């Protein structure tokens, strides 16, 4: 095959795609199924992929499609963050007081993010957690890059409003 061997693609991207799907579904078993399915589909289409294609963005597109089908066909409600047992979240160390505040904020943000409409949530996660270009996010969500940007903007606004009245962790002050 004209491109790199598919094994290198698995090695380079499986972990990230798995985490993305875990972030979207909150269940290890679903992240497992959907991430495997993502790569099996990718493998089937691998030969037909353009040599210059952005493989990583393409994998996220497949994964996002699968995640959307998952939510659509199963009619599954995403579960509340608090009730999830098979996921740990990373800890950002800071002073105890700051850390407590950070975790509180984080839990709030988490809750808002999980309540977002699917497209906004996916756009937000792809942009903020995986640093995908809006072009690629648009392809994943079958919309224009401008719409993808708008989804992220709406998500940020909702999160921001979800934090009304909440004391936020200290950030370096504005000039």
């Amino acid at each position, binding site marked *: 095959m*004209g491109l790199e061997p598919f094994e290198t693609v698995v090695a380079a991207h499986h972990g990230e795609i*798995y985490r993305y799907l875990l972030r979207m579904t909150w269940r290890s078993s679903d*992240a497992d199924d959907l991430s495997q399915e993502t790569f099996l589909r990718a493998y089937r289409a691998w030969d037909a992929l353009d040599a210059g294609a952005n493989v990583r963005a393409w994998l996220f597109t497949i994964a996002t499609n699968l995640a959307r089908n998952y939510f659509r066909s199963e009619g599954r409600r995403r579960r509340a963050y608090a009730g999830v047992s*098979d996921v740990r979240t990373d800890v950002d160390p800071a002073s105890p007081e700051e850390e407590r505040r950070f975790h509180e*904020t984080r839990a709030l943000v988490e809750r808002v993010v999980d309540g977002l409409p699917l497209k906004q949530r996916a756009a937000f996660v792809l942009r903020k957690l995986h640093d995908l270009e809006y072009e690629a996010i648009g392809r994943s969500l079958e919309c224009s890059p401008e719409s993808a940007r708008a989804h992220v903007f709406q998500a940020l606004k909702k999160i921001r409003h979800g934090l009304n009245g909440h004391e936020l962790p200290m*950030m370096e002050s504005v000039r």
Partner: protein
Amino acid sequence: MTAKSPSCRAIEVDLVATATGEAEPRSAERVQHHMNTCARCRDEFGRYRAVDHVARGLHVTPVPDALAQSRAGLESRLADLKQRRLAYRIFPSPLGHILVGRTEHGIALVEYLHAGTSLRASRLARTEGVEAVAGGPELERLQRDLMDYLAGRRRDLGWPLDWRLATSDFARAVLKTTAAIPYGAVASYAGVARRIGKPSAVRAVAQALRWNPLPIVVPCHRVIGTSGRLTGYAGNKVGLKQQLLAVEGVQLHAARRDFTIARERMYALGEGETEYCLPTCGSMGTRSLAELTLFASRADAESGGFAPCTSCRPDLHPLV
């Protein structure tokens, strides 16, 4: 809470973009300028920065081993898929549309598509356990090779082969024996049956070749009846057989709804012998084709490693 002023509303998108590190420099300047006089937007800016900071840290960590297990599961499913995967390409040729399929082991299928030009016309559509996928650019080379071969620009395809679509050991033995018949040569069904040690299985040999998954590459067109007639090819496509033999320089006489090889214009090699003869040498002209391989040219015989007969001397009296 009082309503935002129009200027605050106008700058909101840029403010969020700036606070989250996504703004163009000029928008960022505008936002900065606005915030110099607007404490409320300064506060908003700080909040959005905090939101962005927290959001970027929302990564989840899989439970120990879950990721590794998922990866292992994926690799085993991929290995299975790889085993079954066949990438194909369909293209027009002087012999009609042809499908070429390759697996990770080699070329597994060459097929004349009589009934259409898509995968649906192929036996792949009815073959269990094969995962057929449209091939990419690497199959273009196979197409070029085959077109060169059909135009007589290439004598040997040199492709690695995957024999798995040959369904039995018997069929595989027939195909491998047939694959050893050199370019520009013909042998008979009975001859192939003898070579695989089953001299009475002539019809079974013909059946195995009828289902040859690798025509052209495994040159079943070089196998003919002991009468010298072509007798059959790919079902009822004896015309294709004639075309393929003509490319190799084998001369034929048209017979009723068939062709007969021009035996009098071919060099002959007896079974187990190392010297090839003129068709007029000794009893060559009357020996059964079950025991002979015939060559269209001296060069074809000699590239098979055979020497000219020292009594009839085809090297001194070549056929014209």
